[in-house]
């Protein structure tokens, strides 16, 4: 009788987990005869493990069986199958522990058959919970996003799975051998916390990897644009020479038109010239700032870059954000002031050492300056809606700003700590 109960309970548990898998992943089911045979065989094997009290073997084999069955029935990607199965298995064990703990508080002795019913009950509860989750869009989306995150994790993923399995086995063993209820409760709490902690680590690792990949894409795009600009420069250069050749045999009207064309093709190489001298990782931002000023304002700009390309790429997100934000604020001010001056000249130098990145901006200007109020909130040499740029930088504890006026030059040094 016991064997029949165990068998039915075991089959039900497996079926519940298959249902759970389907709810979570929304994959179609394709059951084959081999799957049914394997399911029955596995159930019998688990009963044997249970009868000989081989708890650890039972748990590991159950997991192994579930992975194979899910992979065969749902025909999903192996990594996703493994991870999803482990999550369900993990939640199932956790729920088993919790329900067993609660019931053992109410009943002084846990009898084997009773344990099986509890196990099945907890699986049913888990099914209902996940069924509800699958109906709720946000939580379903969260799960899907997490699966996407896991795709980016390679070595850590394997480590994560092994860690979880080892943890649960250890937990079950400790739980079974626990001296009292209090220790059992502690074990459950520790397990939950450890799992959460490890999930967060995986998420952080994956986010960093995604960030690195994004940076690589941006760098690649920057290099591609640079290459296209180089090709365009060569094309323009050749075209100018061709036009000069034509000019030599053209009449006066055509010569005039050719001169106009040559002038037009001579004016726009600033983008290519500038891009090469701006550190990678901030060249796009800077070019975006420069664009409105370059065409109409005839500003003379010189960049001097002494930063290696990897330096910007290796910055922590917080430091990179600081660098871009503060540099853009200063650049806005410098470009605006420079464009209104007679000389219209601006030089920017990028340097770095082991601990800091330094940006020096020297620009000509033509504003009236209140020396004591500059840098305070709402003071601006522009209109009344401005006046927060310098104020914002000076308040930032992660950067150092030095500003000087030397005759008609505004000299600003921005120092950003890399750490």
């Amino acid at each position, binding site marked *: 009788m016991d064997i029949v109960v165990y068998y039915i309970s075991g089959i039900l548990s497996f079926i519940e987990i298959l249902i759970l898998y389907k709810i979570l992943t929304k994959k179609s089911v394709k059951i084959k005869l081999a799957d049914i045979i394997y399911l029955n065989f596995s159930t019998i094997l688990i009963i044997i493990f249970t009868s000989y009290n081989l708890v650890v073997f039972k748990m590991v084999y159950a997991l192994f069986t579930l992975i194979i069955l899910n992979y065969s029935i749902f025909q999903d990607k192996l990594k996703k199958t493994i991870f999803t199965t482990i999550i369900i298995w993990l939640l199932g064990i956790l729920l088993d522990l919790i329900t067993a703990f609660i019931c053992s508080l109410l009943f002084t002795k846990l009898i084997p058959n009773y344990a099986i019913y509890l196990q099945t009950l907890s699986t049913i509860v888990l099914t209902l919970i996940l069924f509800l989750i699958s109906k709720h869009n946000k939580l379903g989306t969260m799960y899907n996003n997490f699966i996407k995150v896991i795709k980016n994790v390679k070595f850590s993923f394997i480590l994560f799975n092994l860690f979880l399995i080892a943890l649960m086995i250890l937990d079950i063993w400790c739980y079974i051998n626990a001296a009292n209820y209090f220790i059992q409760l502690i074990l459950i709490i520790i397990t939950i916390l450890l799992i959460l902690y490890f999930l967060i680590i995986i998420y952080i690792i994956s986010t960093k990897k995604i960030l690195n990949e994004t940076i690589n894409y941006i760098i690649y795009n920057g290099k591609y644009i640079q290459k296209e600009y180089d090709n365009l420069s060569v094309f323009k250069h050749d075209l100018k020479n061709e036009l000069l050749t034509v000019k030599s045999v053209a009449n006066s009207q055509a010569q005039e038109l050719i001169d106009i064309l040559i002038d037009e093709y001579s004016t726009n190489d600033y983008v290519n010239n500038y891009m090469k001298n701006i550190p990678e990782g901030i060249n796009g931002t800077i070019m975006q700032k420069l664009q409105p000023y370059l065409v109409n304002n005839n500003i003379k700009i010189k960049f*001097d870059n002494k930063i290696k390309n990897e330096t910007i790429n290796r910055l922590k997100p917080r430091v990179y954000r600081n660098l871009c934000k503060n540099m853009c604020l200063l650049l806005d001010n410098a470009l605006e002031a420079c464009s209104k001056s007679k000389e219209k*000249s601006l030089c920017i130098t990028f340097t770095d050492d082991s601990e800091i990145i330094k940006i020096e901006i020297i620009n000509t200007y033509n504003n009236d300056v209140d020396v004591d109020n500059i840098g305070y909130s709402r003071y601006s040499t522009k209109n009344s809606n401005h006046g927060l740029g310098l104020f914002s930088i000076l308040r930032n504890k992660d950067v150092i700003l030095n500003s000087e006026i030397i005759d008609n030059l505004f000299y600003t040094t921005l120092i950003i700590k890399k750490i």
Partner: protein
Amino acid sequence: MIKFIVVEDDRETQNHIQQIINDTLSKKEINYDISMHLSKNKALQKVIEDDSCRKIYILDIELNHKQSGIDIAKEIRQKDWDSEIIFITSHDHMFESAYRNVYKVFNFIEKFHDFDNRLMKNITEIIDTKYDNGIFRYHGSNLDLFIHYKEILYLYRDKTTRKMILKTTKNKFIVNLGVKEALDYLDGRFKLVHRACIVNLEKVDEFNWNEGYFLLVNGEKVYMLSKKYKKEIGGI
């Protein structure tokens, strides 16, 4: 005493520049010294930091080391805005105008285009100009102000804001100083001509005591002139 500092990585060019300097100054009774450097080194650094005499830098832009002439100019200007810098370049650079304005470069001279005459002319021009390194230094909360005296036209106290406004040839600066306080920041060429106005005598074309104004070299007429201060500026 004038110090010429030549930074050029080619010895032959160095010697040539030395010859030009000697030829230019041979007929002038000027005490000078020439210091030669192949690149930026400790000796050059020491010279840059020395502010005991007037300096003229002649720098090759295209040096064959890690630093270019522009880098050296940047280091010079971190400490010294009074010295003159002449760049020597081997070909025409359109972008030099940015450096010219920002690092106050006296001139860019091409090596292969009338080099000797142009360098002689520039050196003569610099020598004949009066060396004036007086600076108005003012430290605000977030900004330091350094304006050469020769750039300042006049200062006046604004009635509304009660602050001193410093007017230069190109800009206007507002500083939190009284009239008498401001005089302490200036040298002898600045005189009080009104209870609320100090003027740079070297920038004035005409004083009209009767109508109460002075006329500046840039054509600006400023109606802040009081007969009370006529004696102090020697009745000009």
